């Protein structure tokens, strides 16, 4: 589904190399987790994949379903099926959450040459999905993320994911700022979307999210590279011993 080869990325504004050759393949139907210490390049990887400005790919490639995505605009990547759940969802005063969701859903459909969703159909679907994420009518009406609590913002990210039905979901520290109950709710939302045709890349600092979203593969990232790959037990090892042992082993 998602194939990343030798990806080297530097900041556009300064001569600072962040990713130094990332190799990673996420198969459809699988959940991969990336863990790693602060500054290892995890969030940069998610931004580069989703098409944020400010980064320069100096070497390597990334493709989604066989299609090269690095030359695409952010919106084209989204229409191709890529979704990033933001670590810090952006507040947009003045744009209603519903309007935003509907615009996004229909823009993607249009880009893929599909028929747009009617207002009635959209309303029905969004209500149903919002309900399972305990998002009430008021949250749907309010401006995007404005005045939302940390938990509400993350639930709103998952709602967008559910509405857009992407092929490849990247979750950037979706557990940050969540209490246990909110994390469970978010994880349930993600698990409901697990599907044979969909890949997940879950970026996290902590094992606890992975108790709820059980990964198939765990990668450890350090200094811009994937330094170790293993099964779910790798996440437990990090939880118990920290990154020091693994990094020492690599050195």
């Amino acid at each position, binding site marked *: 589904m998602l194939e990343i080869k030798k990806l080297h990325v530097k900041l556009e504004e300064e001569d600072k190399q962040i990713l130094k050759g990332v190799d990673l393949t996420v198969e459809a139907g699988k959940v991969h987790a990336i863990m790693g210490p602060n500054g290892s390049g995890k969030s940069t990887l998610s931004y580069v994949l989703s098409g944020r400005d400010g980064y320069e790919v100096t070497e390597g490639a990334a493709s989604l379903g066989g299609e090269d995505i690095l030359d695409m605009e952010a919106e084209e990547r989204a229409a191709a099926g890529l979704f990033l759940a933001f670590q810090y969802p952006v507040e947009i005063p003045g744009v209603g959450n519903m309007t935003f969701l509907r615009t*996004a859903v229909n*823009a993607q459909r249009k880009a893929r040459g599909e028929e747009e969703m009617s207002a009635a159909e959209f309303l029905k679907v969004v209500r149903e999905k919002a309900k399972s994420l305990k998002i009430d009518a008021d949250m749907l009406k309010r401006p995007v993320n404005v005045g939302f609590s940390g938990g509400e913002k993350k639930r709103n990210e998952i709602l967008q994911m559910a509405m857009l039905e992407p092929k490849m979901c990247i979750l950037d520290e979706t557990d940050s700022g969540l209490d246990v109950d909110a994390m469970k709710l978010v994880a349930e939302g993600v698990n409901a979307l697990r599907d044979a045709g969909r890949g997940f890349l879950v970026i996290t600092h902590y094992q606890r999210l992975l108790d709820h979203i059980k990964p198939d593969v765990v990668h450890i990232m350090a200094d811009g590279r994937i330094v170790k790959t293993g099964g779910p037990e790798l996440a437990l090892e990090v939880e118990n011993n920290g990154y020091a042992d693994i990094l020492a082993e690599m050195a």
Partner: protein
Amino acid sequence: MRFAPVLTKPSAKRDADTAARLDVLGDIDATGCLAEARKTALARLTEMGLPHPRDEYWRYTKPDTLVQPQAPAAALHDASDEAPLYDGIDRLKVVFVDGVFDPAQSDSLEMAGIELCRLAELSDTDIHWSRDLYGVLEADGQVPVPRPLAALNTAYASDGIAIRVTDKAARPVNLIYLHENTASDAMLHHVIKVEAGAELTVLENGPAAARFNACMEVDVAEGGAFHHVRAQGRDRERRTVTHIFTRLADEATFKSFTLTANGVLTRNEAIMDLQGNDCVAHVAGASLGDGGDFHHDDTVFVSHGGLNGESRQVFKKVLRNGATGVFQGKILVKEGAQKTDGYQISQSLLLDDDSQFLAKPELEIYADDVACSHGSTSGAIDEEGLFYLRSRGVPLAEATDLMTLAFLAEAIEEIDNAEIAEDITSRLGAWLERRRG
């Protein structure tokens, strides 16, 4: 006799400009109940003279095309690409074509609880309530800053409408200004009296003329409410100067919103006098300018005289391709006007480096227990928000429009009526969509 100190500096150019303009306009209408008001307005104007480019209040906006004897031509704009504004709203239509009342397109001037009368008809009568209002608020509004184009209007306005409301008006009055003559030079003056506890909504729309000078005086008595929503026409080359003067008694409410898209020159002045206690005055505007010849100026003066008054000024401008936006807003809190709550925000969204926004916020406070705040910002589109939208699949052009509408939302939210606000929002959306690159 009211006294307005003349603050304009003597200037030979001013004298010549004023004489040339008055020469074209000729004699004032010296008949009927407004004759005296016209005469004193002309005296005021002659004393002040028309605006001069070096006048402090015309520092950011060139008055020359508003002052010159003949109106510069303005091509007619074909607006058939959009639905008529306020179409879904049950309203009483009063239509002016190039400043001339058109009975054929207008509704009959009758509504329960409301008295409507054309100004032109007042030339034949000596007694009418509007006599106590016409030119009175305008004259009061000449202090501390002279507004000669308003005095010119009082002296020469060819028509307009006088509305007196004694109850809650059943539906809004819609003043529609059509533009059919490329060289038209129109001057209209409206006087509105909202009696105690009465309510009225006035809607205005249309480009009006090649050059349009409009003046509205609104007197709101105890507990009365006046709502005003205006959309100034899209005709690219039109020039407009407007003045709204309002006087508020105890617990009176005045709310005004203006949408401006295009028009090479617009100067909208709002002069609000909160004389009573517990009154509320809101004035807001959203303007969209595209191109180096676009110039939009909002000039506001709020005077708090009573206790516990609330005033809000919310102005948002979207400027692109070298357009210019101006905001001059002043809040005066007089001695004794305690518990005043004054708010003022003026913001511009500059979509490129060539556009500019000039803002002059002012506060002058002579009471010690007040809350007044003001802010002014200029900025580009929020990149974070833009990326967020794009990452969800919204194409750049559409995402830019959404962010632009989001920027304007705070001003549009000032419109109380949801249906009208929706109308205005879809106008804005259509304007943006037409300009997508």
